[in-house]
């Protein structure tokens, strides 16, 4: 099938408050093909995480949120699903990895209990022992050598890197079509982050999982993604294949963002304005990337 795993067109989001409407997303269009790793890069407050939450169907339940636009997941119209149907998608067809693994895992249950819960979303009648075995196998895939010990531990007994690997294993265990990773390495040490992302990269490639990778870290995005969307203040400002976009950024905002990243080759810290009218220039779409589906 040629349809994209995820297709978003002109997605708008506003929050209604007593002073009126505050618009957060001003019409975002984005698509992810099967097995493709797509990054959404932007600064805090640009609308990255709310986009992820809309895809998961978490913001739709918020009474103050006003959402419009096309949201299609494997050809299904997500906006037409009931809350129950959306719930059924989460953890099975779509899953998510959060920034801080230690707070994403429940500290009062062992890892094994949480794994069983996730597995039973797909296989409701799964026996406990069998779930334990499947979870152990999944943990071995993320290079955890003693899965039994980890499964019997609580999240606070494990290191951050270990917890994040548990999260990755958990997110992929039901073989989702789409994985949303929201700043998955930010809370980790650089070296652990590199290792974790390597692992994630390998696994999603094996399983042909489509990934929406949300990050503010351009370096991490360059290593991980096939294609990049740059978002600024609720608008996509640039889109293109990773290589192309990094070697030849076209939009003033992307250019500013790139030059602000300190280089390990030195050269000092450039003085770049953090606000400029030019950052709101129309979006630049690199050729030979977006159009063909």
């Amino acid at each position, binding site marked *: 099938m040629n349809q994209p795993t995820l297709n978003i067109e002109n997605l708008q989001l506003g929050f209604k408050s007593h002073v009126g409407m505050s618009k957060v997303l001003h019409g975002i269009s984005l698509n992810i093909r099967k097995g493709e790793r797509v990054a959404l890069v932007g*600064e*805090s407050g640009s609308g990255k995480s709310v986009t992820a939450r809309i895809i998961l169907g978490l913001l739709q339940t918020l009474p103050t949120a006003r959402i419009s636009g096309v949201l299609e997941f494997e050809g299904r119209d997500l906006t037409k699903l009931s809350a129950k149907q959306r719930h059924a998608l989460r953890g099975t067809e779509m899953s998510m990895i959060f920034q801080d693994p230690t707070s994403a895992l429940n500290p009062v249950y062992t890892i094994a209990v949480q794994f069983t819960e996730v597995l039973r979303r797909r296989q409701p009648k799964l026996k406990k022992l069998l779930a334990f075995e499947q979870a152990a196998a999944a943990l071995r895939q993320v290079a955890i050598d003693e899965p039994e010990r980890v499964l019997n531990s609580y999240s606070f007994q494990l*290191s*951050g*890197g*270990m917890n994040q690997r548990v999260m990755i294993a958990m997110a992929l265990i039901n073989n989702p079509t789409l994985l949303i990773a929201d700043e998955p390495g930010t809370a980790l*040490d*650089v*070296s*652990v*982050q*590199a*290792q974790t992302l390597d692992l994630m990269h390998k696994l999603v490639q094996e399983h042909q999982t489509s990934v929406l990778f949300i990050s*503010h*870290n*351009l*370096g*991490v995005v*360059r*290593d991980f993604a096939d294609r990049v969307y740059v978002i600024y203040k609720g608008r996509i400002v640039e889109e293109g294949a990773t290589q192309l976009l*990094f*070697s030849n950024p076209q939009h003033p905002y992307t250019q*500013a*963002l*790139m030059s*602000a*990243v*300190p*280089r*390990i*080759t*030195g*050269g*000092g*810290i*450039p*003085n*770049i304005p*953090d606000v400029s009218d030019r950052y709101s220039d129309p979006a630049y779409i690199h050729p030979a990337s977006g159009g063909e589906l």
Partner: protein
Amino acid sequence: MNKVILSLQNITKTFALGAHEVRAIDDVSLDIHRGECLAIVGESGSGKSTLANMILGIFEPTSGEILFNNSVLPAVRDLPLRRAIQLVQQNPLSSLNPRRKIAASLRLALDVHSIGDKNERQQKIGELLEEVGLTAEQQNRFPSALSGGQRQRVAIARALACQSELLVLDEPTSALDVLVQARVLNLLNELRAKRQLTYIFITHDLSVVRNIADRVAVFRHGKLVELNKVEKIFSSPDHAYTRGLIAAIPVVTQDEVLLRDSLGNDGSTGNHNLLGNKEETR
């Protein structure tokens, strides 16, 4: 004026953890030169923050001495000593009191150190804000009404309020967006030149270190594994661990990839082996 502003001599710090003893800092000796920016890098648990806390006088070393301007720092420091060494923390949202207006946060520093009279203090607050690139009008706001970068500027202003000589910067920009980070780093550079400050810059972000530090001290498990000029660290690091750290930096240009790979590959210990060992020893 002497060259060494702060000297750590055989510092060890152990914490009792039940029956065990954890050696957070293990026999570290290090001189910090006046006017330099010394970066302290290492992963979480390497002892960076413990070291900072000892320099600030929050903990006392278990053994060893810290000399400031050639005299040993006493266990209880008097006001002039506390004034001289100041801290900027990672997250200004938690280091600034949310119920205090910016002016009040800054005034507190001036009050504690009895700097000037009432009118002078008010004037000083305006000057400080201007110095860090804020407007005098912003002093009447609460931290919640400022952006992350502006809040960090307030935290820097507060650390400078009492004519400090040495600033301990504990991950001062890691909570900030990259464009804002660049501006705050530039501000720190300007202030250092203008006020002849000495910085101890604690971070895990080596790309920032490359562009702001003069020398780099690499810590691992409480030990100082390498201390060198920044150019040396990024061209031919002595220690395999440093190479491993550099090899893990996410970079954005092809030139950096080449540099990173050339450093990462010439060690006998590959990055992943190194990390594997580290996870096991935890």
